[in-house]
């Protein structure tokens, strides 16, 4: 992205009148872009602006409304349900980011080592990325609700004999597992791309110096992969904040509201008639996502220098 910024400054400064191409006002180019731009504005920008606008009103989604200033925001910050969903979303995302990245990194290291059947193994590990999250959550829901307790009973392992999905203290673990299961492939592929770009002579040199595989992993691989780790951590974090499908399939926010994320809280605004109120939540949620995106841009630009 920052690549394009530098292109912009480069092309804007010296070559204004476009010396190579001579061309009048080209209608085809406008035809290529304008209709798309209009539809895009209606589908994406307008809803975003509408949402922020209505967060300052008392609209219930239809009918009359009045401006209420920052009342929705004030109410929101003292609403335990919304604060819980923010806390849960951030906490669950943070845990899943760590789980996903550690496992994806190790798998990537494994899959770029001297192993047999690399192509087949990699293909299998990528499959979770391409299947429907909600359907896979339904499958896991069955495993957590039925198979795991049955297996625990068979071996007499007390704590797991009842479904963890029904336990408000443990249900989040199932969400972490399935979310990580689905996110690991994409993360792993990015790590693989980084690992194959490390020049192999570095390893040769260090093994001549007597470094073992673990030492090499910690002193060579991890430091050289820092850029990829940063990208992956931010990408996964941003994705997990939006978690919805998997949670709907596994716990549907329950038991009670113990696994309700911000996304689910916002969606409740349409059925519960607090449209404007939830638009305030959405606006704050957008600001958090934007902050993460800005951190990402800054880190990536620094990496380029």
């Amino acid at each position, binding site marked *: *992205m920052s*690549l*394009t910024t530098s*292109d*912009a400054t480069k092309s804007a400064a010296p070559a*204004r009148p476009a010396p*190579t*191409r001579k061309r009048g006002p*080209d209608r*085809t*180019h406008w035809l*290529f*872009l304008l209709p*798309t731009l209009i*539809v895009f504005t209606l*589908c*994406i*920008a307008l*809803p*975003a602006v509408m*949402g922020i606008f209505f967060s300052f009103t008392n609209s219930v989604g239809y009918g009359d409304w009045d401006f209420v200033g920052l009342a929705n925001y004030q109410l929101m910050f003292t609403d335990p349900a919304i604060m819980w969903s923010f806390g849960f979303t951030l906490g669950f995302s943070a845990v899943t980011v760590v789980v996903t990245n550690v496992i994806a990194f190790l798998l990537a290291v*494994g899959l770029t*080592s*001297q*192993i*047999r059947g690399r192509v087949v*193994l990699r293909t*299998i590990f*990528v*499959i979770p*990325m*391409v*299947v*429907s*999250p*909600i*359907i896979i959550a339904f*499958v*896991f829901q*069955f*495993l957590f609700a*039925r*198979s795991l307790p049955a297996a625990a009973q068979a071996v007499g392992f007390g704590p797991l004999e009842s479904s963890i999905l029904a336990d408000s203290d443990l249900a989040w673990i199932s969400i972490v597992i399935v979310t990580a299961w689905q996110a690991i492939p994409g993360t792993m*592929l*990015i790590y*693989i*791309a*980084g690992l*194959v*770009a490390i020049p*192999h002579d570095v390893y040769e040199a260090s093994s001549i110096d007597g470094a073992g595989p673990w030492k090499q992993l910690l002193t060579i691989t991890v430091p050289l992969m820092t850029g990829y780790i940063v*990208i992956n951590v931010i990408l996964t974090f941003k994705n997990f904040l939006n978690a*919805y499908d998997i949670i709907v399939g596994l716990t549907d926010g329950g038991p009670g509201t113990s696994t309700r994320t*911000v996304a689910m809280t*916002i*969606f409740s605004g*349409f059925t519960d008639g607090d*449209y404007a109120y939830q638009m305030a939540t*959405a606006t704050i949620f957008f600001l958090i996502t*934007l902050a993460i995106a800005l951190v990402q841009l800054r880190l990536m630009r620094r990496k380029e220098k």
Partner: protein
Amino acid sequence: MSTPDLTSTSSTVPTRRSRPLIRPRRKFNLPLTILLVVCTLTVLVPFFVTVSMAFKTGSQAVQGQAFTLPSPVSIEGFVEAWRLTDFPVSFAISVFVSAIAVAGAVLISTMAAYSIYANWERRFFRFAFFYILAAMFLPFPVLALSQIKLSGMVGLDTPLGVGILHIMFHLGFNVLLLTTFLRNMPPALEEAARIDGASTWQTFWRIIFPVLAPMSATVGIFAFLFSWNDFMMPSMIISDPSLQTLPVVNQLFQSQFSSNYHVSFASYLMALAPSILVFVFTQRWVLSGVTQGAVK
């Protein structure tokens, strides 16, 4: 098909090429291979359970034992799932939504990317690029409620509306991929067409669109996977329950038919199979798509 397609996308070909010279065939790491094979179980077990449950008879499935094989093998689950989900209809609607998303993603994104690339020195097109890109940072939940209202107002609370939203939601990412690709294209290609007197329209179809084909394949496959698997948008936007896509209709097994496991898993399998098949046949583009998308 193996590692080379990953390396070809990263720009460090020289060191990689020299690798086989430095290290001629060493013996492979057997314990690590075994460990990784064991790890594939975490991926394979859920699919094994899905398949084995789907082929059980009603009485066998009711016991809910995931790891037993179906005996006898039965397709009654599929027959029942076919009927309950009105499979031909929901399948056709899923295909319809995905087809719009794929065709739209490939056509609209390449057109937009080309006009932005060709007019980069014009301020408006540059602005349009960053405007479209900005949408990548808008989370769907933020837009959803207003989108439901708007799509209802203009009568697009239908599969068609979902298809259009799928296109627009990924426009930023696709245009980013495609413009980057065009910038690496030798400008001589386009200039030659110009000198021969080709119009912009002709240049696009004869030169640009074919040149973009590999990246369009990536864009199209991701559009398919995203659209086919999406639950959130169709479940919110499509107002008529009889016009829902496959992932959404599968939700009905969560409540009403909770103990007919063979029926639900047969239905899950029918919903999962197309994306897995598409992946198996197109994995080259899927794998390179992820790396290209992320490293940019």
